[in-house]
């Protein structure tokens, strides 16, 4: 696969969150699987994910959040994408998306309602994400 044909994915940790390790492991797994990854790293504002996706014609944005504020940070994320002409881009969120006693099912529903295509619970393995992508990305 040449660089020009590789499918592009944007990754990063949203908001005022510095937890980078899981996101980096995910990024490495994606690269190993042949994706072109635009890794924005820690402390990334929502708008920066969208800007990067526009310029690089990315097909998916994978948002990590580990510090419990994910729900607040991810509000309106799909709207930002629609605004930038990326209405069909694939959106995943993952990590410790909320703190407190909420069940995972509730949390997942919250994120799907916000316009994310998938939400990954704590402990999701990179392989699972790769399988999701293979299924969800439209054929090249």
């Amino acid at each position, binding site marked *: 696969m040449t660089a020009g044909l590789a499918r*592009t994915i944007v990754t990063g940790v949203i908001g*005022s*969150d*510095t937890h980078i390790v899981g996101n980096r492991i995910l990024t490495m797994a994606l690269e190993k699987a042949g994706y072109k990854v635009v890794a924005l790293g820690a402390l990334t504002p929502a708008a920066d994910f969208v*800007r*990067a996706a526009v*310029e*690089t*014609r990315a097909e998916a944005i994978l948002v990590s959040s580990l510090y419990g504020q994910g729900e607040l940070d991810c509000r309106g994320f799909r709207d930002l994408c629609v605004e930038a002409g990326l209405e069909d881009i694939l959106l995943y969120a993952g990590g410790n998306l909320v703190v407190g006693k909420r069940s995972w099912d509730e949390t997942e529903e919250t994120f799907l309602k916000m316009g994310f295509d998938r939400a990954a619970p704590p402990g999701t393995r990179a392989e699972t994400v790769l399988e999701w992508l293979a299924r969800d990305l439209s054929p090249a």
Partner: protein
Amino acid sequence: MSAALLIDFGSTYTKLRAVDLERRRIIGAGQGPSTVASDVMLGMKAALGDLERHCGGLPRFRHRLASSSAAGGLRMVTIGLVRELTAEAARQAALGAGAKLVGSFAYRLTAADLAQIAALRPDIVLLAGGTDGGNSEVVLHNAAALASGALECPIVFAGNRDAADDARRLLAAKALACTENVMPAFNVLNVEPARAAIRQVFIERIVHAKGIDRAAAEFDAVLMPTPAAVLEGARLVADGLPGIRGLGDLLVVDPGGATTDVHSVASGEPAPGAIPQGLPEPRVKRTVEGDLGMRHNAATIVAAAGLEAIARDAGLEPARAGALLAQVSADVERLPASAEETAFDQALARAAVKIAVRRHCGTTETVYTTTGSVTVQRGKDLSRIDAVIGTGGALVASPDPRAVLRMALADPAEPLALRPRAPRLLLDREYLLYACGLLQSVEPQAALELALGHLADLDHETARERARHA
């Protein structure tokens, strides 16, 4: 004697510097009016006559090199996709090429944008958009839009390389130069190839289009726009050459009549622990502050700094400062004729330098996270650079250039600004930076030693020397 003639076809004056290449010294300087609008040769002949009078005859010149900022400078329009990404990279490339940026556009060009671009009458349009392998629809939409318009100026394409062939087809009827993408990958800045392409178009087409080649008998080549020559001079003086140490990381500030230019040659990398945000910065960076000019934009300097503050700095009553402002705004070629006017100009220059350098330098910000605070940096960290060089008429004419240049330095009142802390302060008293920027293309060693030998060290200048220059 082996000599070189360095020419600046400026917007107001045609300026000459004759230098002795062996002894690394200035033979003489000459000046004539800028006559590009009528016949460039008139001003050139006047300047040569002036030079001849100063030197008592002209030597035979081995090199005769020119730069130009005449006829409105190199007017450029830049186009990118996302404003903060490829559109910003395109702006950086144009500024670094010494252009006068007259318009910057992002996303898809509309009919209104096209009309505006045509009205701006650019000399060159720089078209970017998309990383390599990234978005190509928008840059191709914009190429098609430019193709359909009446715009006749050359276009430099520096966008997504996957779109280059299609862009070439779309723009077949235009003068087109294709070069490497200004942003080949996300947040990777690659402005040098676009700069080189712009310079090439400038040499091949713009020099002729502006009528400067009518003086072709008097020079070997017009190499670049004058701001690019200053930038090349700054780069040479900073980096040095094998065997000759340069000054190290530096900043050049030029408070001019219409704008204040700031150039930095420094990587400006974040201090340990600081997290960089935003687009990476070019090591050789130029910014132009269009609202900070000693004459044409004196009113906006005062608006930015405050009339009270300018008046206080000049030791004048605010009403008196307001009257002097009206005077220089109405008569843009006016030179100070009284102590009051000199003090007012000094205050204007100090404010222009303070604000322009503030905008050029990066900033830090503390962000509080659940795991503690972190420092985020935007822009270049210039706090540890080695030298600040002042150039331009306002500084050379200043009774105390050191007091003007000190405004570039870190200020306890602005703790988040990454301004220089303890650099050497130097003055380009002989207006040699542009000349050395030109000369380095053929005689780099002579150019470097000439520059190093003639930059005045303001920290070690005695009171008597200052008095003499003033």
